[in-house]
């Protein structure tokens, strides 16, 4: 199986709008990402830099968009207009390999 390219949205031109975009559009919030990561750290002293948190939020946005887009593609390939669990199950192995 060839690794599939991940479809990412075009980047906004000009100044970085990542912080503003979090408030208006949907996507993971910095504080949420921080708390989730902290949950799984082995060392209490481990912290995440502000930039790294923003990047991780983007990672998770891409992850969710990929999972849903690939599931949708699978459902459409089967000529259906609704994405069900089995479509996600079919695309899950490749998704995890790509991440």
């Amino acid at each position, binding site marked *: 199986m060839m*690794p599939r*390219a*991940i*479809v*990412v949205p075009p*980047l906004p031109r000009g*100044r*970085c709008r*990542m912080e503003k975009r979090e408030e208006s559009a*949907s*996507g*993971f*919030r910095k504080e*949420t990402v921080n*708390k*989730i*990561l*902290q*949950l*799984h*750290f*082995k*060392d209490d*002293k*481990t*912290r*995440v*830099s502000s*930039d*790294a948190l*923003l*990047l*991780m939020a*983007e*990672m*998770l*946005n*891409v*992850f*969710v*968009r990929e*999972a*849903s*887009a690939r*599931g*949708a593609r699978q*459902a*459409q390939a089967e000529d259906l*207009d*609704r*994405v*069900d*669990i089995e*479509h*996600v199950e079919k695309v*899950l192995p490749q998704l*995890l*390999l*790509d*991440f």
Partner: protein
Amino acid sequence: MEPEGEQERERLLHSQRLKAAVHYTVGCLCQEVAEDKGIQFSKQTIAAISEITFRQCEVFAKDLEMFARHGKRTVINSEDVKLLARRSNSLLRYITQKSEELALNNLEQKERKKKKSSTAKGKRTSDEQVEVMAESEDSNMA
């Protein structure tokens, strides 16, 4: 009541709250994709993607911690996140571009702060300014 049982329940509640937050965000993102592609997502599908995402965060968190520790650091930085994105070329390019965007934005903010402080505090001698620059450089090296 045993204090240990209490702690366990606190942890469970905490992780449940986080799962709920993830579920909400996943729902929003799936809604965007649904509108984009003109297709619907069943509730179980959104729940499944939410669960998968939450579990993947554990893998991410542990990897990031190991990367930072490998670099003898306790603070995870952008380089660690880029390492995380290495498996797919397009993903790595995307994250690297975002990282550069952020770095540029930080530079712009620093420039703005410098301008503000120099106008607020009045003019300094050029010697003092050179000293201040050198000091901030050293603190970055530590």
